[in-house]
C-alpha cells in the first residue's frame, strides 16, 4: 500500500505524488515470471535483453 506506513499506519499521500512528479510515475516494475527459481538476499541481479519476452509472446 504505497501511501501507508505499515509500522505506524500513518498515511502520506505525498509519496504517490512524488512518484508521479519526480519519477514520471515509474518507480518499479510489475512483472511476469518467465522462469522461476530461488532467490536470496545478496544475489547479483541484472536486466537482460527482451528476447525471452518475444519468445514468450510467440508461444
Amino acid at each position: 500500500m504505497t501511501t501507508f506506513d505499515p509500522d505506524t499506519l500513518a498515511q502520506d499521500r505525498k509519496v504517490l505524488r512524488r512518484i508521479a512528479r519526480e519519477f514520471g510515475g515509474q518507480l518499479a516494475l510489475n512483472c511476469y515470471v518467465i522462469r522461476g527459481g530461488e532467490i536470496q538476499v545478496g544475489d547479483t541481479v541484472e536486466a537482460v535483453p527482451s528476447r525471452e519476452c518475444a519468445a514468450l509472446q510467440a508461444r
Partner: protein
Amino acid sequence: MKSLAGERLDRARIDSLGIAGDRVVHVEDTRGHVVTARTHPRLLAHRATLAPSGEPLVDGAPWTQSEVRRSVVDIVGPGARLVRDDSASRFEVLPLLVATDGAIAALGTMAAGSGPTSSLAASRDLRSARGPDTACAYATWSSACRPSGAGVS
C-alpha cells in the same frame, strides 16, 4: 496475505505466480468484494507470515482461526471473511513487483526532505539498473510481454 503487513524474507522461491505463497488469502465483505488496505488501512496493523508448511499465519495464528476472523470483522464490519485463492486472478495487476534499492533509497531520501538533487541522482541509478536493452521490461512490459496463458485481471 493481501493488505496485511508483509514479511521480510532472506530467500524466496519464485514460481510462475511470483513469490510462493504471496497473497493467497484475502478479505471479502458480505457482497463478496475484495477488501484492501486502501479503504481499511487498519488491516496493515496485522502481520501476515507464511508457516513452513505453506499455510498463511496472521499475527502468528493460522488464518482460519476464529480470532483472526474476529480481528478482521472488527476492522471491516460484520460478515467480513477471509478467503483463500491460489489462482492467478488474485493479483490486481501482476504477480511480482521489482524495485531497485536505488529507487527506494531515492524515494526515502526525498521523503526525508533532502531535496531534489539527491533524488535525481538516484533516479539515474534506477535507469542504469534498468539497462539500455530492456525496453520490453519497462514501458511496454505489460502489453508486449504478457504471456497468453496468464489470467490477469
